[in-house]
């Protein structure tokens, strides 16, 4: 049978964000996936170069709506490391609490979306209802449901009052009960088992070869979590386990995320109960010394990397953001091969793609009014060889 190209996006009713899939199919089976990501380039990195360290953090939060604390913490952590600031333990604990609450709401949101994709809307309603309890807790602590504004270079902006700690602790038992239910459901519910088991399989070797991160890698048995491997914030003090699974399919990714929900509750409970006394911030100098730093952070979707270069002023010279979704796209293209076309939405949803955060570069050809793609050779030529007068590949 001849191969047919099914074009999905960039604007499509089933897509939440703009992305273009060209799915090459042979009958019902997917042969190959070609994708174009950069439809939502916002120029965040360039805008960050023009703002001082106080004004840049609200911008960093807005890289992503779901992992807004992840981006601002990764950035603040990098700058603090360059400035060689010692962050008070109470600030570290508060950052950890918000980070884990954020992970919980992100995973519950993902579970809802995955359920919605397979047509199991009941679970979608339930998880999103339970997510509200977490959103309420975050709103009580930070003043906002989404962009928390908790971080500043040197610590956190708001302290937690005993009343807020008690209110948060009171919500946890109910959430625990709900998560127990989801653990039970994912192992027994026929609707989920049929659509998740054996779909989008990725072996451990493949996961390592394609550089996957986060729950996608951990579901294939790769024991890689920045919180354990390169501890930051208060993760070194808190007892918790890395959740891995050996299934390597969408079912495994669901199990990892639900397991992480459980671990996150443990971390939040420990941090709330053992919140150290003391100041919540140190005064940061206005300027950062010249330096380069690679700040790593385990965002809900995987390893988030901020590369920061400072030049002795109160602004960054360069900030480069590598979001976890970008690292996971190759694995999606690979594990889609030989799968049914109808399983495409659930396999794509399984990495929890966040496309707007991923958009980092847009090529503009002003003369021909075109945007385009750049090959690796051309990219290297633009970076290095062009200055040495070498010819364009």
């Amino acid at each position: 049978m001849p191969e047919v190209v099914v074009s999905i996006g960039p604007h499509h009713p089933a897509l939440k964000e703009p992305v273009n899939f060209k799915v090459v199919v042979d009958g019902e089976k997917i042969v190959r996936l070609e994708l174009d990501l950069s439809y939502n380039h916002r120029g965040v990195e360039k805008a960050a170069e023009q703002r001082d360290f106080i004004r840049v953090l609200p911008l960093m939060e807005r890289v992503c709506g779901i992992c807004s604390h992840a981006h601002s913490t990764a950035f603040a952590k990098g700058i603090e490391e360059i400035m060689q600031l010692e962050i008070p333990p109470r600030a570290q604990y508060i950052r950890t609490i918000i980070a884990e609450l954020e992970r919980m709401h992100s995973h519950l949101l993902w579970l809802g979306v995955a359920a919605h994709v397979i047509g199991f809307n009941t679970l979608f309603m339930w998880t999103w209802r339970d997510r509200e309890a977490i959103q309420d807790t975050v709103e009580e602590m930070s003043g906002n449901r989404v962009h928390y504004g908790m971080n500043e270079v040197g610590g956190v902006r708001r302290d937690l009052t005993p009343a807020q700690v008690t209110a948060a602790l009171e919500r946890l038992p109910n959430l625990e009960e709900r998560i127990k239910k989801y653990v039970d459901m994912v192992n027994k519910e026929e609707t989920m088992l049929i659509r998740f088991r054996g779909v989008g399989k990725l072996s451990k070797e493949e996961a390592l070869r394609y550089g996957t991160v986060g729950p996608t890698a951990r579901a294939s048995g790769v024991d890689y979590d920045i919180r354990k491997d390169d501890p930051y914030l208060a993760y070194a003090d808190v007892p918790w386990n890395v959740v891995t699974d050996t299934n390597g399919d969408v079912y495994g990714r669901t199990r990892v995320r639900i397991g992480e929900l459980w671990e996150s509750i443990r971390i939040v409970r420990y941090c709330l109960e053992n919140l150290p006394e003391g100041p919540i911030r140190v005064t940061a100098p206005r300027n950062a010394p010249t330096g380069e730093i690679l700040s790593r952070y385990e965002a809900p979707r995987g390893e988030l990397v901020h590369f920061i270069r400072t030049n002795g002023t109160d602004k960054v010279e360069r900030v480069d953001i590598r979001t976890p979704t970008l690292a996971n796209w190759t694995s999606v293209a690979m594990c889609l091969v030989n799968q049914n076309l109808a399983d495409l939405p659930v396999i794509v949803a399984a990495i929890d793609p966040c496309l707007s955060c991923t958009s980092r570069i847009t090529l503009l050809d002003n003369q021909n009014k075109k945007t385009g793609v750049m090959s690796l050779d051309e990219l290297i030529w633009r970076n290095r060889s062009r200055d040495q007068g070498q010819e364009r590949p």
Partner: protein
Amino acid sequence: MSVLGEMFENLLSRPITILYPKEKVPIPGAFRGRVAITDEKCIGCSKCSLVCPARAITMIDGPREVEFNGKTLTRKKRPQVKLYKCIRCGLCERHCPTGAIFLKNELSSSGTDGEIVVT
């Protein structure tokens, strides 16, 4: 079967949604809402306009005598906030030395009219 049990349980329990606007959504104490300025406290230092990430605050003429740390100062400027440009991050409140500019605990509407200002 776990789904069926939950469905019957939900049939007998009260709905999770709130009958808005009959019932109001509770607003937590720490909520970051509409920006407000207490003019008599402002010493016109311009810090708020410098830290504002959205560049929503401009300093306009507003000469006035203000009490600060037991001394009487004569200020020249006062802040003016473009309401719909404000992203309610709370940085002005965090950096204000006198607590003159702050975020109220009430909802702020959204819109596109750039002429609506808070002074």
